[in-house]
């Protein structure tokens, strides 16, 4: 099981943080920095569009498989491809944490990881007095934390 890539997107849709993790044979190719922005804003937009398309009945499927803090009820929840999954977490404040993971990552593990990343965001990003909301995250402490937790999943 592996985590290939992480995107953190602000509530207005700008890319705050992006990281590709070094995993052998990762199906997620490295992009140039402009493409990361395109991917982020595309995901943000698709998520919003999806929220308008989701039939009410389908919502129940989401209820079971998300954290209580995940406010993403109708929007884009998960993209399943043959090689990897893209999973979207969204907090009540509009922050999106998007993970690209291998297909064998169990749901409970995924939720755990989403929660952990959200915790690191609150602890290491928001509590930094010099961090301004909506600005790209450039913090070594956050980097290290993310890397160490993700590494523990990449086995």
């Amino acid at each position, binding site marked *: 099981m592996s985590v290939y890539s992480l995107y953190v997107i602000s*509530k207005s849709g700008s890319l705050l943080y992006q990281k590709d993790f070094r995993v052998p044979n990762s199906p997620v190719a490295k992009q140039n920095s402009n493409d990361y922005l395109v991917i982020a804003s595309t995901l943000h937009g698709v*998520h*919003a569009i*999806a*929220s*308008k398309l989701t039939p009410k009945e389908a919502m129940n499927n989401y209820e079971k498989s998300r*954290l*209580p*803090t995940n*406010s*993403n*009820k*109708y*929007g*884009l929840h998960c993209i399943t491809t043959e090689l990897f999954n893209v999973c979207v977490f*969204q*907090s*009540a*404040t*509009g*922050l999106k944490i998007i993970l690209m993971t291998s297909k064998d990552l169990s749901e409970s593990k995924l939720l755990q990881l989403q*929660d952990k990343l*959200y*915790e690191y*965001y*609150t*602890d290491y990003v*928001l*509590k930094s007095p010099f961090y301004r*909301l909506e600005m790209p995250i450039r913090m070594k402490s956050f980097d290290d934390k993310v890397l160490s937790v993700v590494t523990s999943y990449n086995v």
Partner: protein
Amino acid sequence: MSRQLKQLGDDIWRNKVEKVNSELFTLTYGSIVAQLCKDFNYNYDEVNNELFQMGYSIGIRLIDEFLQKTQLSRCVNLKDTAEIVSKIGFKIFLNITPTVAHWAADYRSFGLILTENPLADFVELPDDGKASKKLWYSNILCGVLKGCFEMVQLDCDVSFIQDTLKGDDATEIRVKLIKILKDEIPAGEE
């Protein structure tokens, strides 16, 4: 519901949050306020404003930590919000549980009565005749609440209406819901 909340607040306070020495905290806040008073030349309206702004900046960040630690999702109505602010919000960050009281008839505003206020230990307002009329010593709390509410798309008015420091019988924060910012609610929610 109310009991569960209390239990949850207690648990989080006990197990999840880092604690600091209360005197260090009180004195730090005290010296900030005193310094602000000096900097603004004892113009207390400006001091109130500055404290509010500081609180606001804290609030818009703190809310994410609150959501993460409590694992709570959006409240259904303002009544729940009030209970959660008092029993969990104040509990985990300040270890106090203000009483929710004085609901307006339309249930769009309520009061939070602080029986104790850790910010204001040891404090006596300056006796220059103005402070006891104008300065809201703990105004940072209003800013924090305002910031938190705004980030979860509740546009509220938050202000002190009485303070024991000024000789009132109680310390009360008034929260008034102006409107729910429906357009701002992130896509994917109701």
